[in-house]
């Protein structure tokens, strides 16, 4: 309860400060709109709570990715600064996203794709977390609340996609909008700071021709339309996790 009050206070404070209130009166709800080929993210007014009306997701067309998604991974690195682990061994370094090369053993068919948190509707990492630090926001974004993560790594045991990293060393030069912490677990958060500002995630911006981002709950959104037309496969669909990240061409 008290946390809600703090949030409420903060929202009011920010609203008053930034003069956002005026804009909100003109167009309550979505008063800014960023529309691109890669999808769209309507800006949420700061006094509006995140609801489950929306569910963010993306479709990655790997047939249009010339680099297998390496550019997307680089953009993610740059945005969140997770490649800054000088003391860690290679197997200890953080990876919020990576390019995976796949080759079918029988047919020899091969492809590459970027793999990051798949933002499951039923995330195993959220189920197993003892404190609730591993959480799914109402709009479908799965992330870690680093304030209450105790660093037990059970979520890393549970994730089918190896999407999570544990921070093995003290950190410097952090991004103010994407704080990390030694001894806590972290992963792709769909650039939640960007989404809240009405911007597209960094990886989507880096590959606008191959990725469509948007609201999976809105049948008219670009991503929903594309999924309806092209289909969109899940990695490990057999686990029935209903992922928010879908692929075309795998």
């Amino acid at each position: 309860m008290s946390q809600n009050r703090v949030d409420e206070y903060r929202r009011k404070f920010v609203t008053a400060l930034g003069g956002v209130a005026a804009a909100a009166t003109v167009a309550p709800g979505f008063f800014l709109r960023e529309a691109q080929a890669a999808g769209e993210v309507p800006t949420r007014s700061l006094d509006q709570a995140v609801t489950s009306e929306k569910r963010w997701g993306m479709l990655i067309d790997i047939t249009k990715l010339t680099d297998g998604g390496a550019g997307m991974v680089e953009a993610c690195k740059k945005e969140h600064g997770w490649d800054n682990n000088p003391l860690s061994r290679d197997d200890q370094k953080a990876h919020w996203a990576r390019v995976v090369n796949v080759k079918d053993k029988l047919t020899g068919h091969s492809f590459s794709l970027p793999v990051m948190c798949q933002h499951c509707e039923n995330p195993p990492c959220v189920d197993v977390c003892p404190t609730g630090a591993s959480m799914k926001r109402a709009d479908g974004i799965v992330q870690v609340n680093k304030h209450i993560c105790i660093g037990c790594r059970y979520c890393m045991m549970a994730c089918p996609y190896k999407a999570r990293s544990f921070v093995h060393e003290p950190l410097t030069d952090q991004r103010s909008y994407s704080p990390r912490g030694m001894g806590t677990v972290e992963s792709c958060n769909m650039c939640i700071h960007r989404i809240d500002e009405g911007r597209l995630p960094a990886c989507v911006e880096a590959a606008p021709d191959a990725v469509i981002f948007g609201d999976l709950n809105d049948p008219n959104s670009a991503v929903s339309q594309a999924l309806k037309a092209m289909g969109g496969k899940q990695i490990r669909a057999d686990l029935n996790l209903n992922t928010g990240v879908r692929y075309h061409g795998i």
Partner: protein
Amino acid sequence: MASQSIIFRETKQGKGFYILLAVLGAFLALGALSFFHAEHHGHHVTGMNNQIVWGLPHVFAIFLIVAASGALNVGSIGTVFGKKIYQPMGRLSALLAISLLVGGLIVLVLDLGHADRLIIAMTHYNFKSIFAWNIILYNGFLVLSAIYIWTMMDRKAKGFYKPAGVAAFTWRLILTTGTGSIFGFLVSRDFYNSAVMAPLFIVMSFVFGLAVFILVLHFTYKWTGRELGDKVMNRLRYLLAVFIAGVLLMELARHLTGLYISQRIGVETFILRDGGIYTQLFWVVQILLGSILPLSLIFCRKLKDNRLALLLAAGFAILGGFAQLYVILIGGQAYPLTLFPGAEVSSDYFDGAINGYTPSVWEIMLGVGGVALALVMVTIGVKVLRFLPESLSDAVADPHSK
């Protein structure tokens, strides 16, 4: 409760007591040093990584936690199932259970990325998490075991002896179910996600707990000059054999199931045939040294009433149990996650590769520190309170009871 002739006494003041405490204290200090080192520098000083996220500390911790619930069995057999010969050992059984659990939990907690946030683990609960349930189960186990000890030590509380024993026994079965389910509930890992993990861990706890109990009982009696007869020890001897056979049966069912389901053949053949150190640990240490050898030592006719053979059997059962947990924990993580069944995968982040793990000295120190803490608690416990019968000789232990 116990036979009339059973008298409980604290162990005597002596040089040996302080020497033992000093030795254990040294290991405790090393454990503390290890914690502060990793806490200050981060986990990059350990052998654990983002593939093998649970390492040697977890093997130690889970061994101690599983052994804790098993150590209580000796008391439970006396209280719940009314076997009189076990009843005099009930107090030590519950003390050992508490000590092993605290030793295991301290390793688990001090390995956390944020051990300083233990209070959060106690105040923020996600009730869908078996880990959160385990926190409640561990705390409840400590409380119930303490109450159980109280009903055995305080004549006024004697009326609660049976209910307390039944409650502690029931709770411990649920607790080990919870510990096994930490692995059983992992949907994405073919080596773990199975309901058999819960009963497997229960039978494992019978073995680990009893083996530790046998060693602790023998050495406390030997070092304090008390008499410990073969009647008692032979009961424990054959019980250990039954439990070891039980684990073998569960393991057989688990691995056969894995070999039958084609989705799991990859990880099964890795563990059973191609896994290098894990395969060796499984066949040589867990099965041969940890199961077949103790069974042979127990059932060899020439070694009947041979105390050394029993102690070796218990020691090898512990070694085998440790190897078993190492194979389950580390071996299970060493095998890569399956992202695309039937395909070869590769990346710059160890996809499709067998994950490497070499424990650091810090992890060994932390784990051994937990063992030392458990033993310190037992050593001090039997010194300050009346946990041990003065004698468990054949005449005193009442061998003709049921």
